[in-house]
């Protein structure tokens, strides 16, 4: 699903200062995984996300995302790569003059999605993130956590196979941050591959997911069910104890979420069936029209 093979990224500012942000980094993330990308500030985490989205191109090495050969991707194909990766940022990036609904719909409108799809997907995804009631509100009327849920809904509305979140909880309090994590986990349970860049130790320790740690542009740890700090360094703090203080809120959306998603799949299946039936019908009509009975 996502592979980095010996990827190096050097930023060339002016001729003198060039920064080696990533140095020979290799890893593979499979379909359906949930991965934390951690490391100190300036380690190169955001660079990884930028390379995945081809905001920047790698200096060396090979990157594959969703079957796209990212480093060699032609410019006009970049939008299609980005459509297959939902992105969430620390600062939400909502449009202040649009309602919640419009903000989410925007992501479909600008890729030319059919209106039918917009009318169906936007309410669905809003209900998945528990914001059906606030669809008509403007971002400034929402709390930080709610705004980030809108941003998550926008990232997920076209059902991308991957979601990429760069410090999505950086501006949120721990409880709200946990809400967002639980939502990401819910999407992950439905098969979406999730990559979260974070500083939040408690979250990482609680979630018990795979951890990729970068430091100084090098991949220094890749651990299944990892904690924020490497255990081999002798961590005096019990990660589970640390996280026990966290209130994990039940949004009450989890069941509804799964139900909606499966309903959605059913609708899609029916839709494509209908499509093929009407195609058949069309072909049949054409055949019967052009059919000439044999003349004796």
């Amino acid at each position, binding site marked *: 699903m996502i592979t980095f093979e010996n990827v190096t990224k050097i930023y060339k500012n002016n001729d003198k200062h060039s920064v080696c942000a990533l140095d020979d980094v290799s890893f593979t993330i499979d379909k359906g995984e949930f991965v934390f990308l951690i490391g100190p500030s300036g380690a190169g985490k955001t660079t990884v996300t930028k390379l995945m989205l081809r905001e920047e191109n790698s200096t060396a090495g090979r990157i594959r995302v969703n079957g796209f050969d990212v480093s060699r991707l032609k*410019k006009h194909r*970049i*939008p*299609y790569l980005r459509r297959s990766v939902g992105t969430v940022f620390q600062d939400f*990036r909502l*449009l202040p003059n649009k309602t919640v609904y419009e903000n989410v719909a925007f992501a479909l*409108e600008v890729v030319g999605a059919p209106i039918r799809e917009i009318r169906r997907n936007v309410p669905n995804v809003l209900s998945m993130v528990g914001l059906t009631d606030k669809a008509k509100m403007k971002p400034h009327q929402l709390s930080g956590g709610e705004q980030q849920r809108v941003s998550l809904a*926008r990232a997920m509305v076209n059902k991308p196979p991957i979601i990429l979140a760069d410090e999505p909880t950086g501006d949120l309090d721990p409880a709200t941050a946990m809400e967002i994590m639980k939502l990401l986990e819910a999407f992950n349970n439905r098969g979406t591959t999730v990559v979260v860049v974070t500083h939040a130790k408690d979250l990482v320790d609680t979630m018990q997911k795979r951890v990729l740690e970068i430091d100084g542009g090098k991949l220094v740890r890749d651990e299944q069910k990892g904690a924020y700090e490497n255990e081999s360094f002798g961590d005096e703090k019990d990660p589970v104890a640390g996280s026990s203080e966290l209130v994990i809120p039940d949004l009450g959306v989890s069941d509804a979420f799964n139900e909606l998603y499966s309903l959605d799949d059913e609708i899609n299946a029916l839709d494509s069936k209908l499509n093929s039936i009407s195609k058949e019908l069309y072909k049949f009509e054409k055949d019967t029209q052009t059919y000439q009975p044999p003349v004796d």
Partner: protein
Amino acid sequence: MVTTMKMRNLKYFIGQGFSGLASNRMMSFASISIVTASIAIFGIFILFGINLNYISEQAIDGIEIQAFIDRGAEQAVIQNIGRQIEQIDGVREVIPYTAAEQLIIAQEMWADDPVILQRFENSNPFREGFRIFLADPNDASRIETQISRIDYVFNVNNDADDIQALVGFAGILRMISFWLVLILALVSIFIISNTIKLGMFSRRREINIMKYVGATNWFIRWPFIVEGIIIGCVGALIATGLILWGYGAIVSRIDGWLGMIDMVSVGDIYKNLILWLLLLGGGIGIIGSTLSIRKHLIV
């Protein structure tokens, strides 16, 4: 299916184009004004040029040489001269222009002036002559010389020089218009591209999000191009309206003053003028916005 999608996109681009204009009223107003002024100035020159061409074409068509004959020449000599002129290569038609005929014209012309009329009473000061029409106005001076060499021809008049001057002036005007349109178009393009640049700046959040959710470059760019086209076309329309209104007023005045200048009528030119000035405005808009996009909207 595909066409309905395109229609929806088109509606979206046009809507975005207009809302872009509305979101930056001052700048939009300024750039529409500049485009209007530029196109109006250019349109005035075009109208000047069209009329000059029209007048000089008419003048060329009516180009005429007049030959006058020595006093006292006998009727047979005069007829012989007429035949000789007819033989000259390039002469289309020769009409006698008698002294009596010239007298009548003069009397009509000075009908209000008793002093002059009195001078015509006792004697006819005019000479017998011919009016000569040409197949090709370029032959005027050659034919003039050939006629002047015929015996008993007193003098030959030729208005071709004046017309040549008129044609020359039309050429100069054309050149001025060309440079003027170039300079004014560049100014308009510059101001439009700045307007679009500001528009892109005020929409940088939207553009940023569009990039992340995978909108194509053209989808992001079109609204700005549409905005440029709207500025150009609105400017062109206002300018054309102003010019046609002003021109109509001038034509009716001049027709009232002097019947002798025949100007091109508004009805004959308005369709072409609107079409060409709209194309010019639209073109300026497209170039202005495209320049801005290429420079600042790196996707």
